[in-house]
């Protein structure tokens, strides 16, 4: 069953990518405000995105 020598490592690698991504979400505070996150998609806020200036990035929003 030689193919498992390919399939299992690839699957585990994908799993590790998933795990590392999960750790990133923890570090990044993605779960800090779960109630707000669920509610915010419902805000009507017209059909335009927030309008930061061209130099504003997400880092500027998080102090």
């Amino acid at each position: 069953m030689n193919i498992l020598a390919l399939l299992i490592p690839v699957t585990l690698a994908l799993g590790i990518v998933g795990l590392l991504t999960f750790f990133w979400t923890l570090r990044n505070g993605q779960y800090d405000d779960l109630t707000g996150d669920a509610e915010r998609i419902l805000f009507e806020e017209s059909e335009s995105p927030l309008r930061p200036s061209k130099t504003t990035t997400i880092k500027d929003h998080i102090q």
Partner: protein
Amino acid sequence: MIAQLTKSERHSGIFLSLVISIAGFLLAIVGRGDPLGFHGWMILAVGAAFLVALARQLDAPEPTEDRNASYYDDPTKVGIILALCWAVVGMGMGVWIASMLAWPDLRFDAAWSSFGRLRPIHTSGVIFGFGGNALIATSFHVMQRTSRARMPSQISPWFVLFGFNLFCIVAASGYLIGVTQSKEYAEPEWYADLWLVLVLVVYFILYLRTLARRNEPHIYVANWYYMAFILVVAVLHIVNNSAVPVSFFGAKSYSAFSGVQDAMTQWWYGHNAVAFFLTSGFLGMLYYFLPKRAERPIYSYRLSILSFWGITFFYIWAGSHHLHYTALPHWVQTLGMTFSIMLLVPSWASAGNALMTLNGAWHKVRSDATLRFMMVAAVFYGLSTFEGSFMAIRPVNALSHYTDWTVGHVHAGAMGWVALISFGSIYALAPVLWRRKNIYSWKAVEWHFWLALSGTVVYVFAMWNSGIIQGLMWRTYTESGTLQYSFIDSLVAMHPYYIARTFGGFLFLLGAIIALWNIVMTIRHSPKLEPELDYPTSSEAQEPAVPAAE
């Protein structure tokens, strides 16, 4: 739409179209006398069509600067229309091939119309054509809205959308002329497979870039589901389609794997085509459009995240349940079976989450067919994931394998879950995208819902019956220990169910045709939604002429 591209973007588009046209021309020349040559001419024609369309609009006025203050919705709009067109084509093929099973003479006496060639047009047409376009279109919408950011490129989304559709038409046309790798959901040959990898890579990068420029710090859960679909499908697609072309001037290739090794690879891919393409991607759709339409937040946002990680870590191991009682080693079968059963937990977490979200909105489910589409989709999702986990158990599979029960399971998921959530999402999205007050005909949406539901129920009940009959007939022994029924006996017993299945699919197809009509009528005739503004503007993006003071 071309007028929305800047001059340099139009030039980029022309350059890309030129490259594709030249590639097509080269394939046409080197592939002379081979199906590859035919595809070369087709690719050349597509490239040339885009070239002409862009060149004609090259000198149209440049778009206004204020477009950066709005979302880029043109690719989403085109994607929705393409999805509905593919639904009609793919489901139409489904009805045809179903009727061929009941009445085998319903074909022209030619190779192209044989069941074997038409069947993958159905499977690829509904999964990739309908499902894929629905995923691309809705993901473009969701990633921008939940990030509160416009996507970073006006070229990439078109490359993804049209590149993906080029893959679909190369696949479908190839099947007609006999091109196939004979791998379920992976029939297209090596050259189409390479192209799809490129499309998926650009898609994933576009997604990441959009999230990177988000104005909303949190990445909404739906985005995770969509991204898992793109990444995992791409990796599995690459491994499963590893093949050695006989020559670079012909379509034919040989798989890098063979025998039971190939079978395992195929179902490692094939089951996760279901898991990540048909489940994860559409859960992304569900998690955005259902709460939006119900105007209620997800019941337990925490649970939706747990469900995501559970699904992604468990699903990928489940593939070997397609190979119970084959030459695949027993422990590998058991591994797949175990993870398939564990999978029930995160799957029902999502299904339950969706239904609990509707608590407080059941009156809306009663009166709003669009929301009802999504609710019934969640129910079928729960049903199919239970059924799947159940069928993955080895002794259950001993009865169900190779029978129509598997087909019934597939279609409960494909019609009941995937198609219904797609239609619900499209009906919810279209008025928003095209700035209309509502869908052209709410009655037509109702008609569609009941046609879709009854079609699904007729189809699935027919296949449950025929599948169990097959399974039982194949394992019935006489007193002397021989098989009671021949295979032909079981085939004859299938006849009424094959007719019922054709009818069920036909009802479903009618619904899809109504949907296409309704959306087109919405775009053309529904009254526009005029937002109430307290400043004058003639801008398409409804932006003031002067940026508002901060």
